[in-house]
């Protein structure tokens, strides 16, 4: 067999096997030792990362993509379901990146969670999540993708509710599950449609046969699934609430890997959407709305993790816009670069939170530039990468997206919203950096500020290197399949940069005003709108359940109990019968024996008459 394909396939299967091995060691009845999390889980992820570089290099050199079909699993009546892995351009690049980020996060988590007695279980959950995510991105059929999809959803639930003694954490975990479930309805509808009409769940067959069909209905289902999983507007409140989980969970799940699963689904199934204008417009407008709304909400938040969560949501909206522009590869590029700097932002937040003795409010931080130089530097690097500073990682993807948006024949409204959201990105990023690192300290004097542990610094440094050079490496090595438009007016070319600089200057002006109050009782309805997340959770989480429950109660009481059971049911029947019986029995006198004797006499006479 040809050496290239042999190495490629075997190393990819080995990556998955390396990741599954620590999970199998938990199955034996002897308890693991204290260091199991570090010796088994972290080293397996590191080994899997190094192993996955091999397929990446082969792909870079020769462009080999592979589909590995292992096992005929089951047979539903019309078609077969196999275990089948598709390692194409997207999953071969995404897997090493996910493993690299996870390796850094696990190393960080060994410091962050070291005082937790259930740390081994925490690492096991993270590893299980990672396996589900790898299954999702490498799935070649919808069934395997669904397994990965549900797996990441459930692990998200378990990890958000890690500190389950806290009522808010339980609520947040339940909220995540419910919103994801609404999205899953869309995915299941799409899968059912595909099974019924295209008679297969294999991606290759779907691509071939979809040219003959009108794919609007399954595409709407897939967009709904992406809305749920990737927190687009309408199903977005679970993402900021998911910050109740520990910081490594937020870094891994809710910034780099799980929330991009919805976007990844749309990228993987993009050939279905290329010609369907309804789906593309939906993606575009939904993404633009999401990115602006969540960026606006991020402007006035005071919890550092919530700001980063809204920033994630805003970038996810941007990815959705890119898909709506028919540019799946740019969206994928943004997924890859976003993973680095967003995970790093979360790790820096985690380091700051632990150092300030679990303080998460940015109004009570400050002046950390001199006290935690490495963390605050990397926070600044991550924020700069996020805003699209030229030649850092975020620039290559974000600028390319904004250029594509500017030069396409599409919706001007979506364009304006995206540009405003880009300027908001600069504003809230600057706000974080200003409140956390600049100025004078506003925290308690006896804070255990210590970033000297290599388990903290090395992951953050690794991700910082990734945030700086990942964009360059990825764009210089992979050819785009759609030619980007290279020539445009200077203003359009610099649009993203200009808008970002305008946002930054506005933010700088506003910070100069933080110690001045112009009115005694300021009227700030816009601030309230942004701080209360657009009143979306307050309305949807209270009004809709109340209406549904009161409707249910009135059905149960008035319709069933009072109407069916009393007025028309048994009691109604009995009251009707009693009236009729009273009327009829008035005519009877009750001389039964006489009546029966006359009956017998009549029968006898009739018989005798017929015999004569």
């Amino acid at each position, binding site marked *: 067999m040809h050496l290239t394909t042999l190495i490629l396939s075997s190393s990819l299967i080995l990556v998955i096997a390396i990741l599954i091995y620590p999970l199998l060691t938990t199955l034996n009845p002897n308890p693991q030792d204290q260091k199991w999390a570090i010796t088994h889980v972290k080293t397996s992820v590191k080994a899997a990362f190094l192993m996955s570089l091999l397929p990446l290099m082969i792909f870079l050199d020769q462009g080999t993509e592979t589909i590995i079909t292992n096992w005929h699993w089951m047979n539903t009546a019309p078609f077969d379901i196999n275990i089948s892995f598709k390692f194409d351009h997207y999953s071969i690049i995404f897997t090493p990146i996910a493993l690299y980020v996870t390796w850094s996060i696990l190393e960080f988590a060994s410091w962050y969670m070291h005082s937790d007695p259930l740390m081994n279980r925490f690492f096991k959950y993270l590893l299980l999540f990672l396996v589900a995510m790898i299954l999702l991105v490498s799935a070649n059929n919808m069934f395997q993708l669904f397994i990965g999809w549900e797996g990441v959803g459930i692990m998200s639930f378990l990890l958000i509710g890690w500190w389950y003694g806290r009522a808010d954490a339980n609520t947040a975990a339940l909220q995540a599950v419910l919103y994801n479930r609404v999205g899953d309805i869309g995915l299941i509808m799409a899968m059912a449609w595909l099974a019924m009409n295209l008679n297969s769940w294999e991606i290759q067959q779907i691509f071939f046969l979809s040219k003959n069909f009108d794919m609007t209905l399954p595409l709407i289902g897939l967009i709904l699934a992406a809305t749920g999983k990737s927190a687009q507007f309408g199903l977005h409140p679970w993402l900021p609430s998911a910050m109740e989980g520990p910081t490594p969970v937020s870094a891994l799940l809710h910034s780099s890997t799980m929330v991009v699963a919805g976007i990844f689904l749309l990228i993987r199934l993009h050939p279905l959407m290329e010609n369907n204008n309804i789906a593309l417009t939906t993606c575009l407008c939904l993404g633009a709305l999401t990115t602006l709304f969540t960026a606006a909400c991020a402007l006035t938040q005071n919890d550092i993790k919530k700001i980063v969560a809204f920033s994630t949501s805003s970038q996810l909206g941007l990815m959705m816009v890119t898909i709506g522009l028919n540019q799946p590869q740019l969206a994928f590029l943004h997924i890859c670069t976003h993973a680095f700097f967003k995970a790093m932002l979360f790790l820096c937040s985690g380091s700051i939170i632990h150092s300030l003795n679990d303080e998460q409010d940015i109004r009570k931080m400050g002046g950390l530039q001199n006290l935690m130089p490495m963390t605050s530097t990397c926070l600044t690097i991550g924020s700069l990468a996020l805003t699209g500073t030229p030649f850092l990682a975020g620039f290559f993807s974000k600028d390319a997206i904004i250029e594509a948006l500017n030069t396409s024949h599409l919706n001007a409204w979506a364009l304006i919203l995206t540009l405003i959201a880009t300027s908001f990105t600069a504003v809230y990023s600057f706000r974080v950096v200003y409140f956390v690192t600049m100025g004078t300290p506003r925290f308690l004097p006896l804070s255990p500020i210590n970033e000297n542990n290599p388990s903290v610094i090395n992951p953050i440094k690794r991700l910082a290197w990734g945030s700086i050079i990942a964009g360059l490496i990825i764009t210089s090595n992979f050819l785009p399949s759609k030619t980007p438009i290279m020539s445009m007016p200077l203003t359009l070319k610099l649009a993203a940069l200009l808008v970002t600089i305008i946002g930054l200057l506005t933010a700088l002006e506003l910070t100069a005003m933080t110690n001045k109050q112009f009115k005694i009782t300021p009227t700030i309805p816009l601030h309230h709108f942004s701080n209360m997340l657009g009143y979306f959770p307050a309305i949807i989480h209270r009004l809709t359940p109340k209406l549904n429950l009161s409707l249910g109660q009135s059905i149960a009481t008035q319709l069933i109990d009072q109407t069916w059971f009393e007025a028309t049911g048994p009691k109604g029947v009995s009251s009707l019968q009693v009236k009729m019986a009273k009327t009829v*029995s008035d005519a*009877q*006198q*009750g001389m*039964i*024996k006489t009546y*029966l*004797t006359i009956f017998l006499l009549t*029968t006898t006479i009739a018989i005798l008459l017929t015999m004569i």
Partner: protein
Amino acid sequence: MTPVHFSFSSAFILGLMGLTFHRTHLLSALLCLEGMMLSLFIALALWTLQFEMTGFSAAPMLLLAFSACEASAGLALLVATARTHGTDRLQNLNLLQC
């Protein structure tokens, strides 16, 4: 008339007379009713065999099922009577007599 015909016909007529001329207990009327049903069952079964109409083979079973329902209804009435009047003697059932 063959002896078998005579036997169930006479069973039926005797049951009917017992039903109409019942004197003291309601229960005896119900028993006669059951006897009538039994004779009808035999009649239907013999009808099927005599005329070799296999399609009617189910008719006796149906009759049996319905007579069971009717007997249970009659017994329920008996129990209700015993509850309200204390006995099933017929001279007590004279509430509606003028």
